[in-house]
Every structure is written in C-alpha cells, then in structure tokens.
C-alpha cells in the first residue's frame, strides 16, 4: 500500500516512515506542509496520505483543509488525519461530506504500532476511522430524540462498540454474545436506521455516523 506522509516535525516523520515501512507499507513521499502535500498527492497518487492536522504556516488546521482538497481532487486517495487533541468537531467536519477513505486519530496512536497500521490500512482501503477517544466522547453526549431512540438497549451497546471500530467478533467477546447474535443485532440496527443492504463496511460507517451525528 502506497503511503505519503505530511508532518512538519522531521524527526517524527522519519520515524513514522520507518515504522510504516517496517509494517509493510510503501512510503512513497514525505513532506512538511500542506502545499507540498497537495503537489505530492497529484504526482504520486498514493493510496493513503497520513496528514498532521497542524502544519505550517499557521499551525492550526491546515491538515483538515488539505484533506478536503484531496477528497475533491483525488477521491481515490484516503486521508488519515493525525490530531493532537480530541475534538469531535474536527471529526465531524472532516466526514461531513462522506466518510469513505477518511480517518481522524490521535497522534499518540503511534504508540501502538499494530493498531496504527490497521488505521492506515482501513483508510487506504476506503474505510473510515475515527479515534476511539473521539467516539467515546461523542457517545457520552446528550442527544435529542432521533432514529436511535428506536434501538433497544442491547442494540445501543452494539452500535456504540461498532462506533469504536470493533468487529462483530470483538463486540461479541465484549458483550458475551455469540457472533450470530451480534450479527442479528447489527442487522436490526441497520434496518431500524433505514440502511439498505450494501457492502457491510459501508453500512457500518453510516450507522456509526448516524450515531455520532445524533
């Protein structure tokens, strides 16, 4: 999988490149700011761009802006945003126009290389990843009445775990349910949220988005 890195700290960038290469990724380019990132994406067409949210010149949310541009110019390129903070607002804004091939995770996630590599891979394959800390923050939010109110308590739990990016297998283990039962719950959630059959991952993302946006 072809990866480009955009991060203004050279030390971090080089280290991350080595780790990703060690994990089997093909790091085809590294840049230090958003402008060069856009140029690099245009020329090398990677599968995924790993982008620091804060980059020169202003060090605020250049990464987010660049991500949006990439989504428009090269829809096939996944973008994984690395953030220093846990802000649902950033995630919401990122996925406002569709979550495919987008990710928003804390920079600290590099401390678990296996998990981080999985994030990169999911985004590279067109999936979507939202940092578990952000998701749990969103889950604790109060909600007004919406489609989720039709879910049973158990379906709620399942959806919450889905939103944390867990597989059916992991959800079953967590809730002490058989994979079969989890699948039933997932199917029920999809139908209650009005999600038509489609590749499962896509429906999972939509269900999670419904959850997050509610």
């Amino acid at each position, binding site marked *: 999988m072809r990866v480009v890195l955009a991060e203004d700290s050279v030390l971090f960038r080089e280290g991350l490149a080595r780790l990703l290469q060690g994990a089997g990724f093909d790091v085809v380019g590294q840049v230090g700011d958003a402008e060069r990132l856009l140029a690099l994406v245009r020329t090398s067409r990677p599968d995924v761009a790993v982008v620091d949210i804060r980059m020169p010149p202003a060090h605020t949310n250049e990464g987010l802006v660049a991500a949006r541009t990439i989504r428009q110019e090269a829809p096939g390129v996944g973008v994984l945003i690395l953030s220093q*903070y846990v802000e649902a607002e950033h995630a919401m804004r990122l996925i406002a126009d569709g979550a495919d091939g987008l990710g928003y995770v804390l*920079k*600290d996630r*590099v401390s678990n290389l296996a998990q981080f590599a999985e994030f990169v891979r999911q985004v590279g394959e067109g999936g979507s990843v939202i940092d578990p800390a952000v998701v749990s*923050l969103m889950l604790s939010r109060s909600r007004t009445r919406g489609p989720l109110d039709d879910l049973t308590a158990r379906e709620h739990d399942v959806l919450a775990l889905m939103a944390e990016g867990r597989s059916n297998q992991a959800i079953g283990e967590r809730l002490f349910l058989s994979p079969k039962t989890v699948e039933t719950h997932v199917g029920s959630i999809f139908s209650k949220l009005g999600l038509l059959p489609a590749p499962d991952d896509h429906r999972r993302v939509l269900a999670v988005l419904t959850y997050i946006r509610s």
Partner: protein
Amino acid sequence: MSYPRLIVLALVGLLVGAVGEWASVVNGQHAVIAGVDLAVGLTYLTAGLVAMRRRPGNRIGMLMTAFALAWFIGAWGNVSVAREFGEVPVYGFDQVRVVIWFDALNQAVLVHLILAFPSGRLSSLASRLVVTAAYANVLILGLARAATLDFFGAGAADARFQGVLGLYPDFELANSLHRAYEAAGIGVLLAVVAILLRRWRAATPAARRALAPLWLAGMAFAVSITLAAPSIVGGATPSTTEVVCCTGGLGYPGDSYLEVPERVREVLFWLARGGQILVPIAFLFGLLRMRLDRMSVSDFVLELGEGPPPGRVRDALAIALRDPSLALAFWARETGGYVDAAGSSVELPGPESGRAVTVLERQGQPVVAILHDPALDEHKELIRALGTVAALAFENEQLRAELQAQLDEVRASRSRIIEAGDAERRKVERDLHDGAQQRLVTLTLALQMARGELAEDVDPRLATALQEATDELRLALTELRELARGIHPAILTEDGLGPALASLAARCVVPATVQSAPQRRFSPTVEATAYFVVSEALTNVGKHARASRVDISVGVHDGRMIVEVADDGVGGARPERGTGLRGIADRVAALGGRLECSSPPEQGTRVVAQIPCA
C-alpha cells in the same frame, strides 16, 4: 455711601422738593398735583438713596437721586412768580430763566436712567448718542431758548423782568428755538422708544426679566408724553407748562399751535405722572426681587442636595438665574486653563463678546467660570451666592469626573490584564502542543522503533520495561492534552465559540445541549470569557446540581453577548461561597460585563453572563 452723606442728600432733596412744591401751591397750583409731584420726586429720591446704599458700584442710584433733584428744580419755576409775595420777591426772573433753562433736565436724566438701566452704564453707541443729545438739547438749545425768551412780550415795561438770560428778547427767535427744542425732545423720546424696542427684541429671557418692569414704565411715560402735545413735550415737563400757565400764559410760544382739550390733557397728565412714578417703583421692585432671588438660592441648594446627575449643576444654575444661555467653564489645574464639561479647552469670552463672566474662586484658585448674560451683571452677588453653593457641587462633579477617569483607567487596565493573560494562556497551550507534546509523541515513536529493533526472543523484562514506558508516555500525553485544554482550548482559537461549546457540552457528565451559539467570531478575550463561564458553570452542574439536563445558549443583543447556562437540578447554589464562579464573575466584570446566578432551591440553577462584545 455712608449714612451721614445719604442723610444729608435726603435732607437736601426733601428741602428742595418741599420748597418747590410749597411755592407751587402758594402760586395757585392745585394741591393734589403738587402733592403728586412731590410724591414722584420723593419716590425717586428714596429709591435712588436706597440704591446708592445697597449698590454703591452702580450709577442707577445716583441717576435716580439726580432725577429727583432735577425734578424738584423744575418745580422751582413756580417759586419765581414773586408778585404773589408782594414786593418781596423770593427770586428774581434771572433765576426763573435759570429754572426754565434747566426745566427739561429731569427729562434728560430720565432718558439716561432708562437707557442705563440696569447696569448703570450706557453699553451701546446709540444709547450714548441719545443721552448726549438729550443733555445737549437741554444745555444748549435750552439756554438759547431761555436767553431769547420774551417773558412778558416785547418791550415789557418792567425792566426788572429783563434778566441776564433775557439779554436778547426776541419773540420770533424764541419761537423758532422753542420749536427746535420741542422737535429735539420728541426725537430723543422716539430714539429711546426705538432703542428699548430693539433691546427687547434682542434680549435674552434673563435680560427681559430684569428690564421688563422698567421698560414698561419708561415706555408708558415716553409714549404718554409724546402723545400729549408738542407744547408739553417742548416744555419737557408739565411743570414748565404749569409755570407758563401759572404765569398767565404770557407769550409762551407753544400754546398757540396745538389745541388739546382740557380733559385729554388731564388724562395724559395723570398717565405721565403714573409712568414716572412707576420707574423708581420698578427699580425698587428689582431690588426687592433680588431678595426673592436669594430665596431661589435655597431652592438651588435643595436641588443640588438631591444629588444632581453630572451636568445638572449647570441646568440648576441656569434655572435659578433664568438664563438658558448660561455655560460653565471648569478650571483645569493640570493645564492651567478652562475646560467645558466634555473636557475640551475653553477660552473665556472677552469684554466685547456680549457675554459676561463671573469667576468663582476657592482658596485663591479659580474653580469655575460662569459665562452668563451681561444682564445678570446686576445680580453678581446673587451669582456669587449661587456660585458658592455650586462650587461645592462643582468640586463634587470634578471629583466625580476624576474618579470616573480613574475608574475607566482601572477598568481598561483590568481588561488589558485579562487580555494579556489570555494571550499568555494561548501561547502556553500552543507551546505545550508544539513543544512538549510533539516531543513526547516523537519519543513514543522512538520507543516503538526501539521495540521493533529488538529480536523476538528479547529478555521479557526489557520488553515489559519498554511497554511500561510506552504506557506511561501515553498517560503523560493524555494528561498533557487535558492540561493544555484546561489552559486554553485550541478548538476555541481555531474554530470559535460554537464548536468549543459543543466540545464542552460533549465532555459534561450531565447531558448538555448547546441550544444556540453565534456563528461569527469575537475577540479572543470575549470568546475565552464566554467559554470559561460555560466551562465553570458546567463543572458546577456536574459537581453539585444533580441535574438531568443542562442547556447552554449564547446570543448577542445590543453589543452584549448573553451567555446562559441553565440546569434542572436541585438549585441552592451559593456562588459567593465558591471560588470558581467568583473568579469567572471577576473576569466578566473586568470586561465591563456582569454575571448573575439565580439558584432557588429545587428550581435549578441559572447562570447568566453579559459580556460587552461590540
């Protein structure tokens, strides 16, 4: 003027008047008329002496006294008809002629008096000319007329009656001179009327108030004389006419050319007398009203005692002195000049400006200058009395202004301190993210790389140590992130109040909803203050309220941001006992806003902050 001198003057006046009128009566003058004449003169004398005593700096008193004497001298014309006293003349005809020469002097003095009232000075060129003309008429034309007067007709047998002033008895010449004399008299009167009318039109209310009674009296007098008859006007006072009448109308030139019915003449005579007697009464009334105005000082004091709002002293003073144009100039110690209420520099008007200035001092230092209508110059004492009272109020106002300036400065500096603090917090937050946090993340990465370098069969203790170090690092990063967030949330700087409040609501342990939040950006300090208000309120809700929900709303009305956090908890919050909300309230107050907390038991808690955000 001292009492002895006044008494001497009073006695002289009385004597002159009494002798004149007594002579009039003895010579056949109607006692009532003589009595009225005496009354007119004595009224002037009294008013003049009182005025000289009470207002020694003012010429009006002197003019009124002079008028009284001139008036009585006119009556002395009657004394002259010595034949009634047998062969013992009291005065010879020379003296009669002297009297006739001066018989119109009282009119000139009256013109002077009317035009000089109330200041005692002739302020305009026109009035100076008119008064000069009036005196000149009497002194020059009057002399010429008296010199040529042919008292008993040409070739009078009794040479005794051809006195010094009758050097050139010439009936025709005397007649012409007399007509000129009359015309000049009428001209003077018309000029007086014109000047009074013009002054009335141009006068401020204060001036009208000061002059009204006198002008009414003066104009009534002038009009009545003007209308009466040229013969009367020419003779200038009825006394002269009476002299002529009493002396048997001996060749007095004016008699011949205007027929005035006796009845009309009588009415006009009384009108003229009434008008004359009103003049000194008007002046006395003016003096008396000075007393009444002193009463308005006490009203003024009471008014000021009410605690006048700034600028009210001027208004109260303007009302007490009835001069709407009144203005105040405050002495500014720092600049050594005068400033107006708004603090702009003010030049005091010069003597030619048509404005008068009264400066109030305290301990030799000017406090305030009162710019007022010159008509109030007569009331300098009153202005000073009011001013002395007002000086205290001025000083109050001054202190108040200084205090206000200091307060403004303190407020501004308080707000600047908050702003500086905010800027510092933002910088610290940023440094934490870009410095320490970035380094720790990189360190995490390095640990991962180190772990990757190690073979699979590494000493488990080393692997554990590395893992523990990694875990510690993650905790440190999390704590650091929360710390930075507490110092100043990056999302507030980057995305504004709405997202930042949503983020706060998401972190609240009680279900919290942002009902409304402005889309636009505000100054960093305003945004941070609103944010910390909500943050602190939500913290308190989480800790104490036992609420099931909390609503956050932020709106902007009239340049003020209204931040409201309301829960449905147990209420009974005591913001004055906790340091958190009080600190926030101080912060809000530093920006000129207000923080209110209402928390009745069992009815939830509502925190509302108003923050100026224009």
